[in-house]
C-alpha cells in the first residue's frame, strides 16, 4: 500500500475517532443537562488539573530528564508571578520568553 493511501486512511480514521472524543460530552449534554452535584464538582476541577498537567512537564521535563533548577523552571516561576499579578497572556508570554532566553545564556 502506497504512503499516500496509508496517510489518507490514517487521516480519516484518526479524524473520525478524534471527533468522537471531542464530541463525546458536548453532543450528549442535551441529555445530561441536569447532572448530579458530585459530577458537576468533578467537572469543575478539570480546568485546573488539565492545564497544570499540560504545563508542569513542559517546564520540568522538557527533554525527558527532570530539571528542577534550570532556565525553563525559573522562567516558569517568573512567568507565573507575572500571570498572578496581571492575568495578561501576552505579557506573561513576553516576560517568560525573555526570562528563558536570558537564563539560557546565563546557564550556558
Amino acid at each position: 500500500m502506497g504512503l499516500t493511501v496509508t496517510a489518507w486512511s490514517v487521516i480519516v480514521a484518526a479524524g473520525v475517532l478524534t471527533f468522537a472524543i471531542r464530541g463525546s460530552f458536548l453532543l450528549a449534554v442535551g441529555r445530561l443537562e441536569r447532572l448530579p452535584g458530585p459530577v458537576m464538582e468533578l467537572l469543575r476541577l478539570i480546568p485546573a488539573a488539565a492545564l497544570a498537567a499540560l504545563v508542569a512537564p513542559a517546564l520540568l521535563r522538557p527533554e525527558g530528564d527532570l530539571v528542577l533548577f534550570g532556565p525553563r523552571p525559573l522562567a516558569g516561576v517568573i512567568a507565573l508571578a507575572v500571570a498572578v499579578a496581571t492575568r495578561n497572556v501576552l505579557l506573561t508570554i513576553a516576560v517568560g520568553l525573555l526570562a528563558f532566553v536570558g537564563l539560557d545564556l546565563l546557564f550556558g
Partner: protein
Amino acid sequence: MSTPPVAPTPRTSVKAGAVDVAPVLLGVAPFGLVAGVAAVEAGLGLPEAVGFSTVLFAGASQLAAIELLGVGAPGWVAVMTAVVINLRMAMYSASLGTYLTSERVGRRALAAYLLTDQAYALSIARFQDVRRPPVQRWWYYLGAGGVLWCVWQVTTVLGVVVGDAVPEGVPLGFAVPLTFLCLLVPTVTDRPALAAAVVGGAVAVAGEPLPANLGMPIGAVAGVGAGYVVRRRGRATWG
C-alpha cells in the same frame, strides 16, 4: 452613536474571542509551521498535510501520526497513537459542555470540531472570569476557535511551501506552556482546585516517560480525583 455598555451580542462576543486568542497565536503559529514541515520530511505532500490539519486539526497527534508514517509504522499504530494523545479532549468536552448546554446540536458539533487545548483554556478562563465583560459563550468560543483554525491551516501550508521559517535560536515553542500557565492561574479558585493543579502537574511530570503523551491525561484525572477528595474532606470537617 455612542453605545453604553449593553448585553453582549454575537458580534462583540466573536470579537472578544478573536482578540483574546491573539497572544496565544505566538505559540500556535510555529507549531503549525512544524506540522507542515514534518509532513514534507515524512514524504507526504501538500494535500496530505492539509488533510491532517483540517480533518484531524490537533497538533500533537498530527505530529505523532506523521512521524510514525514517516518511519514506516503501520497505519493502525499511527491512528491509535493519535487517538490516545487526543483522549484528554474528552475531559475538555465534558467541562466545556456544561457551559454550552442550551446550544443546538449543530453548534455543539462545530464546537466539538474546533476543540483544542487553546480554545478550551481561553474560553473556560473567560467564562469563569467575573471581572471581565460577559460574552455569549458559543460565539466567544467560535471567535477564538475560528481564528485558531485559520492560523493553523495557513501555517501548515506555509510550513509545506516555505519550510522551516522559524530561526533555531528563537524558543517560540516555550510560548505554548507559558500560555497555559497564564490561563491556569484564574482556574485555581480554592483549595480543591489548588490540589487538582498540584497533583495533576506532579503526576503528569512523573508520567512523562509514558508513550503517546499518556502522562498528561493520567495526571489530569489524578488531579481531578485529588481535588474531589480535598473538597469532600473540607465539607466533612466544616460540616
